[in-house]
């Protein structure tokens, strides 16, 4: 498969595009809707639970069926994470992410998709998100010394 790299890129373009359609249709790209889901008061809006209820069964079935194959269609091996350790980093990192999510109503996918929509707020958010990713690299380096 000489053109494997390019075919994989075509597949991931389709995935990115479809993902963006799903995020915007489901309401995930509206920070106020996300915050309405995360804010537990008399106006609590539970509809975003249905995004997961729509996504997980579809993927669970394809995951189960796909993994019966020895390899994916465009690669010679699977790249699905195999780590099982519940580490300190997993919990602390997820908590920090949750704090940011609850603060502005954006998680990475909807934020990146909203950049494509021309939202300036999303551009600022993604810029800060990238800074946070680089900051983690520095943080990790200074602790592994």
């Amino acid at each position, binding site marked *: 498969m000489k053109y494997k790299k390019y075919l994989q890129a075509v597949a991931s373009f389709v995935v990115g595009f*479809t993902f963006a359609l*799903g995020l915007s249709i489901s309401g995930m790209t509206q920070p106020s809707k996300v*915050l309405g889901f995360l*804010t537990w008061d008399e106006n609590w809006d539970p509809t975003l639970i249905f995004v997961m209820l729509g996504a997980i069964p579809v993927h669970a079935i394809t995951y189960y069926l796909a993994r019966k194959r020895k390899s994916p269609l465009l690669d010679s091996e699977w790249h699905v994470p195999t780590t099982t350790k519940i580490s300190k980093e997993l919990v602390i990192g997820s908590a920090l992410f949750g704090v940011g999510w609850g603060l502005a109503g954006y998680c990475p996918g909807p934020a990146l998709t909203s950049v494509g929509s021309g939202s300036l707020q999303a551009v600022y958010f993604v810029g800060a*998100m990238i800074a946070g990713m680089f*900051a983690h690299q520095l943080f990790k380096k200074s602790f592994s010394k």
Partner: protein
Amino acid sequence: MTETIAYALGGGALIGLAVSIMLVFNGRVTGISGITNSFLTAQEGRLWRGVFIIGLWLGGFVMAMINPTFFAVPDTPLPSVLIAGFLVGFGTVMGSGCTSGHGICGLSRLSLRSLVATVTFMLAGILVATGLKYFGGV
């Protein structure tokens, strides 16, 4: 209400389809924080990752053309947006995933690690958003 539930379910199913295409063709998890971080830092695999992000952008662009209200933005103060973005970037790399990688892909394959991550970021998000509502503007 029923209409927004239908949109959430339908949009969710599309997301499920998208991550399934990634798995079946490329054998990978569609973790958006991981893809973004590796695009910025990893030496290899920049093409598919970059093209994935362009796909997200183009999808956002097309959907904003069809209906701009999909991207309605609340008047969150800029400092909050910046702090939130920083925490999301730092936290998702430290915790190896976000709503897509842990919340959808991980839960779909019954990963305990992803369940712990998802419960943690959901609770933290609820705590902060609900706290801001009651104690905001302090």
